[in-house]
């Protein structure tokens, strides 16, 4: 069926998180809407048919970016544009700005929100590998409960997360360790035929360098796997080694991605695997260059 109109649904606009939670708890088949950049498309194609939409897009303060110690809290309805241009985020977690700036096109970035993007959990989404690499926490709230969950546990697979039907994402919590004399660098890279297309491979790399050696290496891959994955072996193999192009190349080549690689008409598993290795090497090199001031 090729439709243009969503099936009938009810629309409620929440003026507070509490009200939104109450509305979510009240009826089955309720869905949260903020920017609507994925949900409305799915509804118009009748791939999603929620009975009730609870709009959290007008809850005041829910899209704020606030400081919490050295870290930041990013409200669920913060748009990609706002995130991409935020000075506070740029200073502390520039990789998040980099990822936000590469979501869709300008119109999508102006409407779409971080909470919506991660709740939707498209495997090709930009935030999943970045938040996983940053070891971010996601605060979830419902009428009866509040919980905080690590990003690495939040995503369960394509379009599935740990979110219960009555829960919503309230904020993303980013903590920052005090500097230990290392120099940090980061890099987010997205591979797609055209810049605004969905990614076939996403990589988030974060490194800390001390005396020319890797003190910390975190690489998370997205888009080619059902959910984001930290490449722990890669990190371990580089730890303590010289932050050289040669070491990076070697480690990237040895990357083991397993058998879960997504294969479709956009890219075969073989090509995605290859691109992942290329992209990991490139993003690590960029991260190192940024850490050492070479870029």
């Amino acid at each position, binding site marked *: 069926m090729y439709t243009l109109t969503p099936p009938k649904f009810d629309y409620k606009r929440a003026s507070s998180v509490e009200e939104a939670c109450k509305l979510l708890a009240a009826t089955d088949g309720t869905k949260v809407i903020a920017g609507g950049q994925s949900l409305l498309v799915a509804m118009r194609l009748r791939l999603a048919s929620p009975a009730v939409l609870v709009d959290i897009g007008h809850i005041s303060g829910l899209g704020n970016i606030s400081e919490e110690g050295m870290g930041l809290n990013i409200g669920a309805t913060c748009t990609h544009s706002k995130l991409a241009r935020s000075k506070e985020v740029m200073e502390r977690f520039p990789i998040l700005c980099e990822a936000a700036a590469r979501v869709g096109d300008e119109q999508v970035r102006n409407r779409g929100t971080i909470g919506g993007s991660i709740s939707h959990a498209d495997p090709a989404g930009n935030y999943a590998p970045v938040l996983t690499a940053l070891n971010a926490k996601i605060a979830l709230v419902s009428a009866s409960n509040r919980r905080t969950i690590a990003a690495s546990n939040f995503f369960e697979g394509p379009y599935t997360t740990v979110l219960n039907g009555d829960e919503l994402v309230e904020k993303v919590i980013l903590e920052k360790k005090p500097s230990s004399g290392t120099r940090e660098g980061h890099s987010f890279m997205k591979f797609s035929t055209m810049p605004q*297309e969905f990614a076939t491979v996403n990589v988030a790399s974060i490194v800390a360098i001390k005396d020319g050696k890797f003190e910390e290496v975190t690489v998370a891959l997205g888009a080619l796997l059902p959910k984001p994955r930290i490449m722990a072996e890669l990190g371990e193999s580089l730890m303590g080694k010289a932050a050289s192009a040669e070491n990076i190349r070697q480690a990237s080549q040895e990357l083991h991605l397993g058998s879960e690689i997504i294969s479709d008409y956009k890219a075969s598993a073989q090509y995605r695997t*290859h691109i992942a290795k290329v992209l990991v090497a490139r993003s690590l090199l960029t991260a190192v260059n940024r850490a050492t001031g070479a870029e």
Partner: protein
Amino acid sequence: MTVQSSQEKRTEQTYVGVAYPRLEDLRLTTGKAKFLDDLSVPPGTHYAVILRSPYAHAKIKRIDTEDAIKVPGVRAVLTAAELLSVMDPLPLALRSPIRYYPIATDRARYAGEPVAVVIARSRAIAEDAASKVNVDYEPLQVVADIEKALAQGAPKVHEAVGSNTVWKKTFSYGDVGNAFEQAAKVVSVDVRVNGYTVPPMETFGVVAEYDKGSDVLTEWCNFIGPFTLAYVVAKALRLSQDRFRVIVPGDIGGSFGTKLAVYPYMALVGACSIFTGVPVKWIETRMEHFVGSTRAATRLSHLEMALSADGDFLGLKARITDDIGAYPRSPEPGHLLKSVSNFTGPYKISNLEISGEYVTTNTLPTSPIRAFGRPHLCIPLEKLVDKCAKITGNDPLELRRRNFIQPRDFPYTTASGGVYDSGDYGAAIEKLKKIFDLDGARADILEKRREGRLVGLGIAVGIEPSVSNMAYLDLAIPEEERQKATFMPHSGGQHSATLKIEPDGHIVVRLDSCPQGQGHETVAAQLVASVLGVNPEDVRVLTGVDTFNVSWSISSGTYASRFGSLGISAVYSAALDMRKKLAEAASKLLGVSADDIVMENGVLFSKSRRDLKISSKRLVGTVYWNPGSDALKGGDHTLSVTRTFNVETLGPATLDNKVNASATYGFIGTAAAVEVDRDTGSVSILKYASVHDSGGSINPGIVEQLCVGAANQAASHALHQELIHDDSGQPLNITFGDYYVRTAEDFFTPIFGSAAKKSPFTPLGTKGVSEGDNMTGPAALLIAIQDALYEYNADIDTVPFTAERIWSRFLSKNNLGESASSRSRPA
């Protein structure tokens, strides 16, 4: 305005050749233009939703509409069972037992083929009800590509045909056998062009209102012509043409050829209105556009060139196989036939043989997409010429130049009957070298290669024909039939324009064109303003067609780049006639001869006696309000002129299969420098330039804008756009998220050059322009990428050449460790 011939040049040049700001842009860019979905609809309009087959090939055993019809607000659920009572098959251009209806009858032959239409009070109700229509399908074996369709024992898309080949023909010109015997060398290439499309922003739409009282069906639709196809629709709906009114709005939201294929839906929605008696509106969704509108053909080509020892092109042989989807609908087999006249491009090749085979598959049917069939031709032909240069050790540009048709040869008749109007291809190439800075680009490539980078250069040239001479489709008809006295040959490609001066002196121009952003209003206003000595803003230009109110012909519409050559000529002819009429009326009122009349600053006067004068306002007023005056009595001074322009060379096809399919033949040369990412196969365009011969432009700014768009489409087509389906014929990339179309953010700016050579066939020398890059762009990029991959001996044989294809075919042998290091390479 002046009637004095010595001053003609001066005034006519006022706005001709000027990049005048487009008059339609304010409306278009501020959301004030009205597209099909914005038009008011007749009272009682119902909305149609089309239920489409989910199977690429299936028997339709039963359609249960009972539950759907019960949904409140549903007027009817129509299937072939109902609609065939008011509809006959849509006539085909080729002779075939296939009956093509716009709705599946007993079988669905592609995934997306209409199976039922739900008609309801609102679109939402119709969509709700459509999900309640139950169709009992029996899936059949699918043939989704050419190779499978041609295999021994392949399932047949149409049992009545007996095989999947619906048309096969060899055209031979000159003595090909001898040419190949004489050849010192024979060079061949193979290229596969996958199915693709150039989707417009606005999707298809039709509003149909059948009036029982008058037995008239009126349709508002964003159909772009040719109106031969409106005839086809009328025929299918059993209507005489005086009972079928087609109204095309003045603004269409893009087309790139696709909206020619609105016509089957004009038949379908029209039949729904006739059957139900209510007005019916249908707007296509984006996904429907991908599965149910149209596409360009998938083509396999094998080309062979016979070369003399000196590198002269002695003969060309081509074996073409086109997959045209589930039905060979009109104007197929145009993908091949439209290019027969100019098959040999800008080269002098007197011996030519073209073997064409048309194959049906369980995929979306085809129709013209920007530069109809010519990307399919230009890509292999230019790849072949480039290969000839390599094999004979010639510079590719020099080899081309050596075989070019020379300026002294024009008008030049090709082996297959094309009549090329004018050209200086050598000069155009010189211009291309200059604007591209060929020497600089070559040095830059050597420099980058020394850094180990995969960079390359490609040049491709081509002929850019404009206007469609319907005669080309007669080549699809067997000679025996064409020989009969009863056979009615087809020809022509005329364009009409009506110019009227209103009683208050305002000028209105009515075109029979259906522009989709090409700026016809501005161009026509510039031209009329120049002839009549007013400002372009004073000329109101109306576009779009209303077959009950506009002077139109079967070739009306906007396709095949026809406005730049024929459209402009019709407008110009009408403006000259109007000027003459005004002079005649003035001469009578002033009692002097018409030759003696001059107009300056809104006053017409006798140049021998300047005191004899009349203002143009009073003149026009007198014609309207006082035609019974002694001076005007008895004469025809109506200030309305309709002129239809045709080019004389557009004759019928001959029995030896020669035909001149186009009116003017421009030239385009494209140069591209690219870099291939050694690790990923991704291609970056470093530099891109095209030189166009438009014969001269009324508005060079508009021409350049159109070419920027074409170059970007060319890059998309070359590098990533293709319609992908799985083995079961299921289309996979049917959203803009999956079938990526460049947006303004992604656009690159090509270097634009003009090398105009006036056409002797049009009054202002103009030729059609702007489809050229769609042909030479992919060809130049292919050649450039092969050059960048010279160390891999890359032979690129599939379009698009995606990053993954380049990587897996050529680069994957190179491991990452080696490739990421920077190495010195010989240039």
